[in-house]
């Protein structure tokens, strides 16, 4: 059987576990509650606050981290791939299948978090809803892919994939300040695309390009660490 398909099956088997789906469901519920709370506090700017602070400031990275820890059973990518690759399957082909499923999962999570937040932070009769929903969802999808790629890279660093934690902590610590390292983090670009203050006055197009470049860099770096 094709090793890419085997890798995808291996990852899907872990993603479709009830406990993981429940964790993702809780994340979605938290997005909804945070958006509803923001709207109740003040309807003006509720969407921006809910997206920037709750859904994408904390929940997406946190839920992504929890999901990866459950899928990889607190181990690294290698621990997931070795039971198959030791029988002669190509480790890199397996990795492609696993990475594709994990990125797809994070894309769906990002899209749903953004969609649910916008729907709950705006009222249904809000004229801006129709325009905001697809725009925020597409940014959510891009943010999901970007965080997914970083988590995949983090999972291939350290003996038991401990790099995940450090990459997210770096993103949290450096991404909120206007430090020289902020452009290398995901947080300011995602915030800029969601309507937050742009980093170094960059345009949305520049923020998108930087997010895509960061995603590609993380995936290539992660792949280079996988043994065939």
């Amino acid at each position, binding site marked *: 059987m094709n090793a890419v398909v085997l890798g995808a099956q291996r990852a899907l088997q872990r993603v479709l576990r009830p406990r993981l789906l429940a964790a993702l469901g809780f994340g979605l519920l938290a997005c909804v509650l945070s958006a509803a709370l923001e709207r109740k506090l003040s309807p003006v700017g509720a969407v921006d606050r809910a997206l920037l602070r709750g859904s994408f400031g904390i929940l997406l990275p946190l839920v992504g981290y929890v999901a990866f820890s459950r899928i990889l059973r607190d181990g690294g990518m290698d621990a997931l791939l070795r039971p198959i690759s*030791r*029988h002669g*399957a190509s480790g890199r082909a397996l990795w492609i299948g696993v990475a594709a499923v994990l990125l797809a999962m994070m894309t769906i999570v990002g899209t749903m978090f953004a969609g649910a937040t916008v729907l709950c932070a705006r009222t249904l009769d809000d004229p801006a809803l129709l325009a905001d929903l697809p725009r925020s969802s597409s940014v959510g999808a891009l943010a999901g892919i970007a965080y997914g790629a970083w988590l995949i890279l983090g999972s291939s660093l350290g003996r038991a994939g401990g790099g995940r934690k450090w990459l997210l902590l770096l993103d949290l610590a450096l991404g909120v300040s206007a430090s020289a390292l902020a452009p290398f983090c995901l947080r300011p670009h995602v915030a800029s695309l969601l309507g937050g203050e742009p980093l170094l006055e960059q345009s949305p197009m520049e923020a998108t390009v930087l997010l895509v470049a960061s995603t590609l860099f993380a995936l290539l770096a992660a792949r280079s660490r996988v043994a065939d």
Partner: protein
Amino acid sequence: MTELALDEIADDRLGPLTIRCGVGLTVLVADQRATLGRLLDIAAGARRPRRGRASLDGEDLYTSPEARRKLGALLAEEALPPRASVRESAQLALALRKPGADAEALLVEWGLGPLLGANPERLRAEQRRAVALCLALATPHAAALVLCDPLALASLLDPARIRDACWRAATRAVVVVGTTALEDAAALGGELELILRGRLAEAGPYARGLAHEALVRSGHSAQLAELLRADPDLEVSFDAARCPRELFVRGATQARICERVLEVVRQEGLALDALSPIMRLGALP
């Protein structure tokens, strides 16, 4: 000539050590179970060592799927390929090496038929290892087998059959068996390497402290002493009056002493309580 080479391997509390094994049966006897497990994981290409490399005929086992396909392995802790049942899991493992191989017939032949329908993740560790051993021994065109404590599976698989399978494979492939049980090393025979505190007994820093002498404790000490004295390469001290159950054996190397003692014990069917390399504590680093 087929060769399994562990070059300058170093990992947690392991090595650096270099072992080269050719076609035939090599038994690694280690004093620490965790160290042995790590070493065999590396030798099977299932773990990347901190330093050094494991290779089969020059091909790195960790990075080359082709090399791993030619190697069958039983690890200290086994995880079968993820599938709904043992039947499917074993079929997948075999199919990755040789499409069309029949895993069900293989497991039934070894007496593991009742496990076929079970979920591999719900098996006991010993059952998973038993399935993995059957798969390893059935590796098509195997150039090497790396087996961790196969005789410890005696409650599930016939030990005599395991031993025969190892020896049969050893006629054409490199077979490396690791164990911490001297009785198992005695039952298997083959060339012996001793690993003490993660290093080869003859090569690590502890080698300086090792006298080329071993203490043998057995209920058949007198008979054993007599048989070992027949070997011109060994020097045997046995005092029946003072220590009726102990004898001291000197030889060229620790490994050769142990190999010879275990061979005699196996051939004559004698009981062996202990076989311990002797350290001169003052000479230790």
